[in-house]
């Protein structure tokens, strides 16, 4: 399991297109993906869940990936949160 706090640096926060891109990529991995913000945890494969976290630029989320391909998943998804994918 990889679990680390990440600052959202994406210009748009995790709202519009980045959120759908995040979900689309997360779905490609076998690992479980979760995002946590202010004690609320949602599935990284659920667009509605991610939207309700209301992640603005500068907010901190905890990204967790757990499964066979967790390393790849974490690396890829982190890039979206940090806005340089």
């Amino acid at each position, binding site marked *: 399991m990889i679990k680390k706090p990440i600052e959202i640096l994406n*210009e*748009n926060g995790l709202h*519009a297109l980045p959120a*759908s891109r995040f979900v689309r990529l997360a779905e490609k991995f076998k690992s479980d993906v979760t995002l946590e913000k202010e004690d609320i945890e*949602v599935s990284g494969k659920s*667009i*509605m869940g991610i*939207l*309700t976290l*209301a992640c603005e630029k500068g907010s901190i989320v905890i990204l967790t990936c757990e499964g066979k391909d967790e390393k790849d998943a974490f690396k890829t998804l982190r890039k979206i949160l940090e806005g340089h994918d």
Partner: protein
Amino acid sequence: MPRERILKGIAVSQGIAQGKVFIYETKHIEVFQTPILSVYLKDETERLDRAIKKTEHELRNIQKRLNYEIGENFAQFLDAQVMMLSDKTIIQKVKARIVDNKLNAEYVYHEVIKEYAEKLGATKDTYLKERVADIWDVGSRVLRNLLGLTHSSVVEVPAGSIIVAHDISPSEAALINPKSVLGIATEAGGRTSHTAITARALEIPAVLGIKGLIGRIGNGEQVILDGDRGIMIKNPSAGRIHFYEIAKKKVIELKKALSPFCELPAKTKDGRHIDISANIEFFSEYTHAKKYGAEGVGLFRTEFLYLTRHGSPTEEEQYHVYNALAKKMKPSPVIIRTYDLGGDKVFSDYQEANPYLGWRAIRVCLDDLDFFKMQLRAILRASVNKNVKIMFPMISNYEEIKRINLIFEKTKSELRAKKIDFDEEIQFGIMVETPSAALLSPHLAHQVDFFSIGSNDLTQYTLAVDRGNEKIGQLFDHFHPAVLQLIKQIIDAGHQAHIWVGLCGELAADPLAIPLLIGMGIDELSMNPGSIPRAKMVVRAITIPECEEIAKGALRFRTPLEIKRYLRRSIQRKFHGIDEVIK
């Protein structure tokens, strides 16, 4: 015979329509709680799966029918809607609750969607708040499919209809077929709503924001919709019908007579070329600009990017739009005006006593440099297409230009440092639309590459008249001699400094004003795309020395009425074949 009634709203898309009302209803969906016997729970979850599948099929169908030129922005929403629909977490949650609580699918689904919508609605973020409408758009589709309710869809509108609705959801607005829909009238919405944008893009007359519309109009009723005046006429009298029939016929005839001019160059009889460009608000309108023969976009009003999404678009979103527009118009120029917010284009959460004299346009931008520079970067990046010019609104003093210039240069060097390409030769211009800028124009001209005269604001500020105020609106007249004198001074000041001068207010499209402005030396006229063929017709009928003579004579009058009478007479005497359009 029932009495004629006039329902007032906001005119958002021009034209006259006469047709049968088609009431497009989005009925409130009622959901009841029903206990389900354990043996049937599996059927219940399967029913949910089927409804979701059916909804996905519907959304994919919409995606197929979608007119991408119009629905570019919307296509993104649609993708997001499909994603929301197939969100596994939600589907699993609904299924688990159906089984655990032994309840019917529609009740549980509604409950879960409501929870998410409420959570999103509670955030402060305006972008997320708007997604609530998307969630309900998708949610209601699923619920209707679960309940076996038929959709009332704008796709099924019979030919010759005027759609009457409380509101039209974005997914429906994108499906409106201009072949069968003659006009649109709604209770909700305004100039920047999705329905308004769609109506303008399809060139369908539309009046929105009519209070109490539903309930006063019945299905199948014959009505007249006047998208120029912003009214809908119920039970029109014989006289009214006659009036509109003539008006409509004239419009059609004129359109036909003018259509050959779309293709022709705007050259005077003696060979001077006048730039005729288009004013546009939305990316999709570039198709109109091209169709009517614009030689460029003389004014791209960026504030609508801000207003339609109730907040600041990101640099990337802006860049995407500016770049796409520049690419589509290449090699013709595109003049992008920085945000002209404030005035009548208000912020939802900010009010002031005197908005036209207040925190408006460039003043807002200069108070929030991050916000301003984000737009400058986006415009600069789009300038790699080599046909982009930038223009700043509401300049009222010299210091503003100096400040903008510093900020602009700084933004450029920041881009250079990051190795981001832009057009080093990008032209930098200002709107001259305040009397102070007009009077200072000899000084301002040395600081910029071009002037664009905003005749609407210049008139309003020079005459101290708010045209929207019904009591004094008739005092607004851009043929007022004081306004014309200022325009002449601005043009002269520009030419003395060897810069070009354009005009982008309503005056530019007025056939009576065109010979006058050309006689004063104007280099470019920018107007609503629909007015371009008429302007070209006028330009092609005139000659420069005669226009100059007209211009010289015009400035000796004392009242707008005298000036207009003089212009009409001299144009009729000197030029031929344009009587029909200068009446």
